[in-house]
Each structure stands twice: as C-alpha cells, then as structure tokens.
C-alpha cells in the first residue's frame, strides 16, 4: 500500500504542471497565512507626507494616494482575496456536490426539478447578476461569498450528476446493490470516492475563477469595504494614474495573475495525471 502511494506521489511530482502549481500555490498560501506578520507598516495607516512614493528601499512596492504602504496592503489583502475565493469555492463545491448527487442518484422528478433550476440559473450572465445583487444589497464579505457560490454551483452539480449516473451503470455498483447496502453507504463509499479525482481538478480551477470574479467585484468597488483592501481594490486604485503611479496597480495585478496561474497549473496537472492513468 505504501508503495502504491509512493508511486502516485512521484507521478504527481514528475508532472511539471503539478510541481510548479503546488510550489506557487504553496508560496501564495504561506504569504496569506504568515505574510501580514512581516508587513513593514500598518496597512491602514495614512501618511500624507509620503503619498505616491515610487518603489524604494523604504517602501518596496511604493505607496498609494493616502501614503499607505502598498506592500503591507498587498500582504493583508491576500488574506481577503484568498479567503473569499477559498470559502466561496468551498460553498460552491458543497452545494454542487450535494445537489448533483441527489439529481444523479435518485433521478426522477427531483433530477428534472434540480436540472431545470440549473438551466435557469445558467441562463443568467454570471458576473452581471452577481454585480447586481452585491450592488443593491449591503455589500459585505459574507454576502459576496454567498452570492458567488449561489451563482457558481451549477457547473459542479452538472458534472457530479453526469459522473454519478455513469457510476450507477458500473458493475461494481450493481454488485454493491446486490449486497444490500443502503443509499447512504452507496453514495459515501462507492460514488463519492470515485468522483474524487474530478472534484480535485475542478476545485482548483474553480478557485482560480473565483479569485478573478472577486477581483473584478472589488475592482468595481463592491465586496470589501475601505479601509480594508483586496487585490482587486488595489488594482482599481491604480486606474487613477496608470502611467504616473504605475506601481499601485502593477504589484496587485502580478499577485492576481500568479495566483490564478498557480491554481490553474495545479488543476490542469491533476487532470493530466488522471487522464494518463485512465489510458
């Protein structure tokens, strides 16, 4: 058994996407967890004598219009950006898996009902409807997370439903039914573990897309409130003087890109490993 795990381990590391994805994601998560402890300044401390300082030894990423240190804001912002996208992803997966399993496993009217809801929700352009709801309601982080998940679970539900239905036709499921296992046990021990690989891949890809949407929202001034800032907020402040004070937008933009690329690499890599092992 240990040999098997070892094999899988080395296959994970020998895949380039997985390797770099893991390193990038690991560093980004490390930055979000312990980064704020090393922030040189208070991220909300205004210093009007030092506004719009270009990057220097004193302020490595420069300062913004209120003289706040951008490196500190970036490090603190990583918690908000990643926190929102990770929890929105978690919620999305939860809703998507539960509803997808219900629809795929029990079929019948429940399946039809749930899938029509999915069709209706997929009919809306996602970003606009999220903008609308976050815009007209009191925009808090929790609200943003709920709305993000509320309009993203449909693809996951569809995937899980389709995969569940294909597992239902396998011989091992019929054999398990012939053993008289109940629905709960069949779902927990037979269907969910067989969805594992697919879910792992889509989680990583979902985190990347959540981060993009969250950044778009805060770029438009929704979601996180001043003086706190996510990376999207920092990016939008750079929009005021992009040629003069380029550093305001640059570092936040780089952080977003690197994180999105990291999660996408990891998701792609996991997908490659699985399709290799299938053939």
């Amino acid at each position, binding site marked *: 058994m240990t040999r098997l795990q070892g094999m899988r381990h080395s296959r994970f590391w020998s895949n380039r996407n997985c390797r770099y994805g893991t390193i990038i994601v690991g560093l980004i998560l490390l930055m979000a967890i312990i980064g704020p402890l090393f922030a040189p300044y208070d991220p909300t401390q205004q210093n009007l004598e030092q506004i719009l300082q270009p990057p220097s030894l004193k302020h490595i990423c420069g300062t913004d219009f209120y003289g706040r240190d951008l490196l500190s804001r970036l490090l603190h912002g990583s918690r908000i950006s990643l926190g929102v996208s990770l929890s929105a992803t978690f919620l999305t997966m939860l809703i998507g898996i539960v509803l997808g399993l219900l629809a795929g496993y029990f079929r019948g009217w429940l399946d039809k009902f749930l899938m029509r809801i999915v069709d209706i929700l997929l009919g809306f352009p996602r970003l606009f409807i999220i903008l609308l709801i976050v815009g007209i309601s009191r925009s808090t982080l929790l609200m943003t997370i709920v709305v993000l998940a509320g309009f993203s679970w449909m693809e996951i539900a569809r995937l899980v439903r389709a995969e569940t239905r294909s597992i239902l036709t396998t011989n091992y499921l019929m054999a398990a039914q*012939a*053993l008289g296992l109940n629905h709960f046990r069949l779902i927990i021990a037979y269907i969910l573990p067989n969805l594992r690989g697919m879910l792992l891949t889509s989680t990583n890809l979902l985190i990347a897309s959540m981060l993009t949407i969250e950044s778009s929202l805060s770029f438009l001034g929704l979601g996180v409130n001043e003086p706190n800032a996510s990376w999207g907020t920092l990016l939008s402040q750079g929009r005021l003087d992009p040629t003069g004070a380029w550093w305001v937008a640059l570092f936040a933009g780089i952080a977003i890109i690197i994180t999105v690329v990291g999660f996408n690499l990891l998701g792609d890599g996991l997908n490659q490993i699985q399709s290799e092992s299938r053939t």
Partner: protein
Amino acid sequence: MSFPLLQVINLKVELIRPESSKSLLQEVNFELRSQELLAVIGESGGGKSLLIKALLKLLPPHFKVSGQIIYTDGNEQPVDLNHLSEKEINVYRRRKIGVLFQEPLSGLNPVLSCGTQLRDAVAFAREVSFAEAHEIALNLFATVGLLEPAAIYCTYPHQLSGGMAQRVALALALAGQPRLLLIDEPTSALDCIARREFMDLIQNLRQTQDLTVFMVTHDFANIAQIAAKILVLYAGLPVEYGDADRLWRQPHHPYTHLLFTTYQTLQKGETVAPSSPKLSDSASSSNGCSFAPRCPVVQDHCYPNFPSYQLLPDGTRLYCHFPLSP
C-alpha cells in the same frame, strides 16, 4: 432435508420502450431445492444474465418483470421477491441471496481496498461492528481459498489477478452468509485448471456452508456431473428443463441436442460450421417456434405455431412440437 428454496413461476421480463415493448424472457418456470445446484445453459444473448438480475430485482425501471419469485427459508413463510419494495428486498440481498457476477473485477469498487469492501458488506449484512467485521472478512478470504488474507485485505482490485478477483468477489457474495448463491458464468475467463479449482471450491462451499447454487454456465461437461437440474434457455424461452443426468444423456429438445453434440465435436478437436442465421435474426423473424429457423428437424407445423409447453412424466418441461425420443 431438502425443500424448495426458490420457485420461479411464469417469470417474464419485458423491455418497455415508449413506442413498443419487447419480451426478453418468457414463461420461465423452475424450482430450486435446497442444497441442489441448478445450471442454466444456452448461448450468448439468450437471457441468462438477465434472469439473475431479474431474480434480485436489479434491473433498471424500464424493464418490467412479471410473475412470481417465491423464496422460502425452511421454517419461514414463503415470500414473493418480485413484489417486495426496494427496502424489503434489501434484507434478502444482504442475508439470504449472494450473487457473483460475470467479470468479477468489474464488480469491485476500484477506489476501495478489497478488505474495506468486504468489511463494509459484512458489517452491513450481519450488523456487527467494523472490528468484528474485519475478523470475519479475514476468515472469509481464507474460506474462499485466498492464501494470505491479511495481504489481500490491503490490496486494491487492480492489483489482483483474474482468479484472485474471482475469489474476492465470491467472498463478497458470501458476506451475509446467504442460503442461495447466484453465479453468472464463473469459469468463462479461467483456464481449465483454475476452472476445476473453482468448481471444487463451490462444491466444497455447498457442503460446508449449506449453500444452494444457481449457476449460469457454458461449462457443460463439468456441470452435468454436479448439477441436479438443468435449464436450457433459447432466445428468452426455457426450451427444456429437467434432471441434469437425463438431459445430458438424452436431450429431448433439438436445441439441447445440438448444443451438446456441438460441444462434443469440439472436444474431439474437430471444427464446427457456424449455425445460421444468427440468434437475433432467428428469434425475431418468425412468429412460430423461435428455434425453427435453425432446427435440424423442423417441419411446416413449427412456423406459424408457437409450441405449447409439455410436462413429461419425469418432470421435464419442454417447449417443442416434435421432441426427440421422448
């Protein structure tokens, strides 16, 4: 003491489609007495595997199963399995009836170790704790002739050889200490030594575990020696059903005769010309006897008339207008 464990009366399986329905199995009648072995033979596509799934109500909803499947367990009231709810039949699937499907490897969950699967099944069926189930599982692996139960326990299905997978699947089928074991073509993927071993194992289990066996097979020679009754399926109809011994020595139905003589010719190393037309064509092309297009002794009377069933004095059931040497 022997008693009828399973009685199947007028079982019929239809495939329901929106525009039409097709009958896949019809007029299946047989009786399986306790501790006996009933063999079902016939060519591919004849409905043998379908019969096993129908017995356990494992067919998807667009298959309509009618008729009675009566199960009695000695001193218990007879129960018609076909008219039980999903919840009620689960009791029988867990404790009374085990099943070993064709291609045992595909019947194992690829992401759980063999031991975990067996432990779950045992814990579920016998309502014991996981720790007890673990012990029982190790014993079961030993019972089915796996040499290192502890090692097998941690093995994943893809690491097993065909013969081992077969035994693991058999252990799973025995998880609930069933009285009745349904086996679907157990020997088709094995060579003749492994085949012999497997049949010996089944014979051994029948004695030690008080098992009654319902077996779909192609292995005529071995089965004729150990089976009590043989049911011959052709295109969904049990054309002949009777004592194994008599049936093997002196088949009444031309199809059974053809099946056995073909087999014997092959055993001698001679080649056999393929019978034409194919099963699927012949079954649908006539509204008379479905075997008529292939029958060596066919007569004009066979074509428009579906043969009615005959009960011979020795208990043989037969669907033929002109049986051989009755």
